[in-house]
């Protein structure tokens, strides 16, 4: 399994995020979104082993992970400003 679908998703998401950020005129860093999509894709890839089955605990765990990662990245970016 080559994971082509995920590369395509990453690309589509990046474009869509970029267009929404511009549309709303937000001052947001593209690197944070790239990191978010990396984390999300990693999570979905690991679901593949279980035939894409998921439960509330998985979703909660994944939501915590992505929150923690993004907050850390925003913190890091603010500190380096």
């Amino acid at each position, binding site marked *: *399994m*080559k*994971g*082509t*679908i*995920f590369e*395509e*998703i990453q690309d*589509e*998401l990046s474009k*869509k*995020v970029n267009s*929404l*950020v511009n549309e*709303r005129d*937000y001052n*947001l860093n593209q690197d*944070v*979104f790239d990191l*978010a999509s990396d984390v*999300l894709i990693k*999570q*979905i890839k690991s*679901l*593949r*082993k*279980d*035939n*894409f089955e*998921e439960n509330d605990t998985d*979703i*909660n765990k*994944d*939501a*915590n992970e*992505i*929150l923690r990662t*993004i*907050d850390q990245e*925003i*913190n890091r970016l*603010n500190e380096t400003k």
Partner: protein
Amino acid sequence: MKLNKLKLKNYSCFLDAVELNFGKGLNIVNAGNGYGKSKFLDSINWVISNQIFHGDVWKNADELDLYPLWYTNPENKQYYEEKEVITEVTLEFTAPDIDNNIEKNTVWFFTKKRYHKREGTKLIRNRDELTIKYINNETGEQVILGKHREFDVIETLFPKALRKFMWFQGEAFKEISLSHDNKEFNKVLDTISHYPIYGKMVKRASKAIIKKENALTKLRREQRGLSKEQSENLYEKDRLLIKIPELENKIIPDLQCDIDDHENKIADYEDFLKNSVEYVKIDREIKQKESDIRHINQSIEEYEISKVNMLIKRWAIAGSKSHIESFQKKIDYIQNELNKIDNTKIPLHIPGPEMVQDMIDDMKCHICDREIPDEDHESYHALLKRLEVFKEGKKERWLRKNFDIFKRMKSNALSTHSEIEESIKNHKKKIQEKIRKRNKLNSEKDVLQDKLKGLSSSSNTTTGENYDLYFNKKQDKEKNLRNLKLRLGSLKNNLINYKNNLKELNEKIRSFQTDNNDINLGEESLKYFEVLVDSLKKLELDAKENLENEITHKSNSLFNIYYDNPGINIKIKNGNVKLFDKSTDDEIDIRNLNKSQKEMIKFSVINSLLKLSNEKLGNSLPLIADAPTSSSEWTNTKYFTENVGDNFDQVILFSKDYIEQCEDPNVKTQLINLCLKQGGSWHWTQKVDKNGNSVGRKFDNPKSDSESKTVITESILK
């Protein structure tokens, strides 16, 4: 992924171990009707899913006999005496190593055995046993998969939704519909498209937003004491943040799906009823005509009976002519007699005849009490004369009475005769009219019946009873649909209200929130997630539409390759397959297509799905087809064979369609070269009897399965 080997032993018509080795690209297994062509595919399905397509439906294989009938024939002594027989199928795949490193391939072995014990002449299924093994790429050792993981591994390697399309039987190719209700087709779209993945991402990112919102609310509460109203505002905001995504992502889409299902079902019913309405109308008209004809027949019969009665009467009256003459004679006689009677009336006062007779008998007048001297006495003569007068009076009365009766009888007879003549004439006329009317009704009925025959042969029709049933079903669905739409409308209004309330609450909350770094950081983080979720939601919506466009494009290009001069445009819309005339762009009624066209359209759509699934999932299942071109002419079979390998890593065709063509050695060589060029293989099967003699290549020389077995006579692998 590649199926390297299929090994069967004691499976159906395969008695001895039969082994087929396959390469990548195109692989063809030639087998005539009755040679076990479908059994190859059945055996794969038995191992992977325990389901076998049998008698036009999927059946649990536990209910089916799989052993060779050879074992039940007493003439095959050695086999007939076997107490335990094991049916065994082994599949060897090169497939992803999902247990260790999904990015790499390994070799998987799926072996299924069915143990039979003998009970009399029959073999009875005792138990089935599946073993899944793979080779550990690092150590090179074979690893047996735990029983609890078998289902998950099979579903991951061979997703059920895709498998149904990848491994199919031509004759029973029903998993895709060219009309409504394409549930199986939609399952594949779900399996290979991006949007379920976007959906999963949306769930996680939305959950993250809720968590971030809750954390921020808690932070704000901790930082300053809030009034009751402010706390309530924050509480209400939390509630709405749960309620809005729930409505937006689950309740409303689910309801919309339900509405779509209802609309599809109603469209089905309408389609069905539309075809049937004319039929039912004509059917009812015919029934009315038949009822009218029955009434006319009844009426004709009544007239006939009445006419017959009259004819009998007329005949009877005609036969009474002599009686009428005799009446007239009697009348004349009585008239004559009456004329003779003396009209000089003697008063007939007392004494009456009895008293006069008494006086004669007593020789005494009972009026004056005088004796009558003798019989010569004038008083005696006076009494006798008196008695005579009485007798004549009686005779006259009798004559007059009978005169009247005879006259009446004669006149009745004569008048009845003329009335009967008139009635018979009228009856004949009425019967003629009725017959004319009946003939007219009959010819009208014949016209209607011809119309009805035309309708039944050209469309999907039904009887009046079914029509009513479907009409009622449609009405029920429409009623439900109205209620569902009302509910959807009300939920959408609620959603708008909730969103407006949330906006107002945010304004209020902002007014009493204090700024600090943590809150600012939280709000910044929220903005990222809001953009992320909105983007994912938009992509989720676009993904299905894009996929349908891709399938549309690919299906049309494959159809152009597989079918000579198609003239049809395929379009995938809302999970359904629609067909349009290439020149006029009008939608085509699938009933106007021939079997071969339908088959190739389905092939094109399915193969485009499979091709896309290969690209999108990075998991290429081999295309395994049983008799895929059974309804096609050789030209289309040839196009299909030459091009089908281009889209898949491996194609395995079990077919009888090349046998006849291979009588020309050039065609056979071309076909073998086509397979080998792509890295595939070429196989030829034959049926032999117990002495190993061929029982012929074609089904026109069959031997029963208990007297013959299938063997591989030719196997060429690159």
